[in-house]
């Protein structure tokens, strides 16, 4: 299983959240509250508009998070990866 930071993962592919690097409780709650938790499948849509931000699709809804926050999320490519 090849682990990547969320901001480094391939665009438009389903990836699974593996774990979080040490982060504050507030940040963990904020990520949980948009549906990012261990085992969750997400799609990184783009990081081309703004350098500091990445755009992800969680449960069919598009969210924007900072690259700094995304750096703390480790993901791996899902087995049933599809475009």
């Amino acid at each position, binding site marked *: 299983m090849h682990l990547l930071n969320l901001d480094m993962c391939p665009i438009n592919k389903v990836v699974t959240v593996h774990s979080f690097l040490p982060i504050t409780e507030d*940040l963990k709650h904020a990520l949980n509250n948009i549906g990012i938790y261990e085992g969750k499948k997400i799609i990184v849509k783009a990081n081309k508009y703004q350098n500091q931000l990445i*755009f992800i699709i969680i449960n069919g809804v598009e969210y924007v998070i*900072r690259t700094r926050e995304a750096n703390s999320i480790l993901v791996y490519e899902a087995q049933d990866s599809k475009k």
Partner: protein
Amino acid sequence: MKHKIQKNNQNYLLLGSPNVGKSTFFNRITWKTEKVGNADRVTTFASTSHLRNNKLINVTDLPGVINLNPNGDDEQETFRHIFDCCYDGVINIVSANSLQRDLYLTYELAEAGVLSMIVVNMIDEVKSCSVNKLFLSKEFKVIIECISAKKNLNIKNAVLPLVNHSLKFTTKNLTYSDKLEQFISAFTPFLPANKINPRFIILQALQDNRYILNYLKQHALLETFKQFVKQHQINATDVQSIALTKDQLITKLIDKLYTPEQLRTQQMRHTSKFSNFMNYIFLNKWIAIPLFILIMAGIYFLTFYEYLGGWIQAQFADNALGALQTLITDNIVALNPNSSLQHWWAAFVGDGLIGGPFTILSFLPWVLILVGLITILEQIGLLTRMSIVFDNAFSKIGISGRALINLITGLGCNVPSIMMSRNANSVKERVVTSMLSPFISCSARVIVFGFLSQILVSTEYSWLVNLALSGFSIIFAMFIGYFFSNLLFRKSISIFTIELVKLRSPHVMFVLKKMVLEAYDFVKRTILIVLVANFIVWILLYTGPTSQFYINPSIDGGIDRSFLRYIAWPFQYLLYPIGLGQDWRFSVSLLAAFPAKEIAASNIEILFGGISGFQTAIQALPIGISLAYLMFFSFYVPCMVTIVILIKEIGRKYAWIDIGYGLLFSYLLAMFVYAIFGGFEMISLQGLNWIPLTVLVSLLLTTLLGFVVIHGIKLYKWKQATVWKISQYKAYQISMLTNAGLCVSLIIASSLCLSLSV
């Protein structure tokens, strides 16, 4: 006004994910007009009202949550209502656009045993993907209704179950791993009786729900719970499986609800060429910022330009209000034209009673156009994109781009802006964003800016002055934010997560409704506060300690013997270092504007005997004084209501720090402007301007010293790689505090010197 909940009434809660249209639905079924917008987490506090045609049924609109594990203060409020309040049903609003996300909350509500009805909103936006009500109702065993709150479709049917009292609570126990099931069975007997399903409480406690953990602590069960977790060897994988089980159920349900073709259509909205192009434009780091500045400039141009909003305002002021005022005063004089008392009555009614409120009411077209255009921005979804683009700049001052939505809202009124900061992801962000809001030029301040810029500059460039002052207020707020976030919350970081909402066309009826409500609020505030304040000022100006009424104080010299002159005396001396002590009436207009900022404009008319009197007075003084007045007025103290809300939302400590620093910074800013634009002219007149100049030079030198110390330490640390006892932060803090202390003492000293010399 807070709605009183009667004991015998039926109470229902409206609950759902952010931006699914809960408040829009709530506004449709009640007479309330809560703020709505095309952005997530617009509602930040609960609002209760009865149904339009049934006073016995109450509905409470709650802030949106994605799941029942609260983080921000707005989410805490939602969870508190679910857990602690009495209600007869929970109506879960989901969006047909984002069922996959919204059903997570539906499962949690069903698991908690409180789900009573599901309302699928925004069906007008997914025509090709009609929602299969049958499957949903089979899964959750509750009433399902599909509506469009925005287009008023099927609302009556959605309200019927509430009126017929046919809603019932449904409990759905999901099945988890054997280990979790054993744990739940073992701990359930310990829990006190509660309307919430004990399974839900245990599962939430495992997921670190702060509210539930606190509940267990209150019942002295937290330690037992932790021991049970250890005994049953519940690990992170088991906790993860709670959310994943629900995800799997949702995936299965979605597959039943939609055909593969419909699913593809739904997914297409994230990859359609149009949405990608629009996002490319509005989120591009080179194009977006100039574009947003142009949009804001356009809004101010439309509102204030003399041939657009300015023309409407002039017509309304002259042909409607001006004519009405003349008619009233003429009729009073006509009763007995030879009596001086009749003239006094005409002056009292014309200037004291209706003059001030009419001056303020004449600016109503500006307020309505400004509010209408900002509402259109909110409805389209541009504010969310603005907050994304500006996040980088905001992160530099320690808060997230989400704060920009609050600040733009503050251009209408500071109060909702402060209330909206409840949606922040951390305490730091909430407090700092709230502290910034009072510095934003609200519509009341914009009225005064418009009024003054028409007199001081010209009607042609009034819009530009307003735009510059509003833009400057945002920059000034960011500077203050940098100061607060470094001084008060250095250790905490800001977090930015935001839903990229779909671009939507603005709904004309919503915009018009918002404008009508704003007009109602504006007229109400003008009548209640401005009228009273003006009346007091008028009485104090027309009377004096010699027990005499002055018919025309500006001409007969009564103005210098009035009560108001004596009240203004101490404040006048405090304002000398910023030039405003030149005329005591400036201090009165600033003091009187404390209840509501608009009062400054109406009072200027009374104090200077009309706009022409003010024009003559201000033109006789250096331009620096007018600019100092504008600078000081922009930031000196927020209005009374804003202060009350600020104290309520962030506590006394931070509120007074905010007000104190605002006063200090605005004083220094006004002094700076006065020294640059007016001070040099004053040398030849009085020879007193060395005082503000000395203060400024000291301020600049100490600031420079502060930065030299900071960077010196930084450089030294880098070279030596040793640990210093005084951190960079401490040095910064000490230098800035010394700076502030020096400034305050110099201001006090200069005020004293001036008052003694005068």
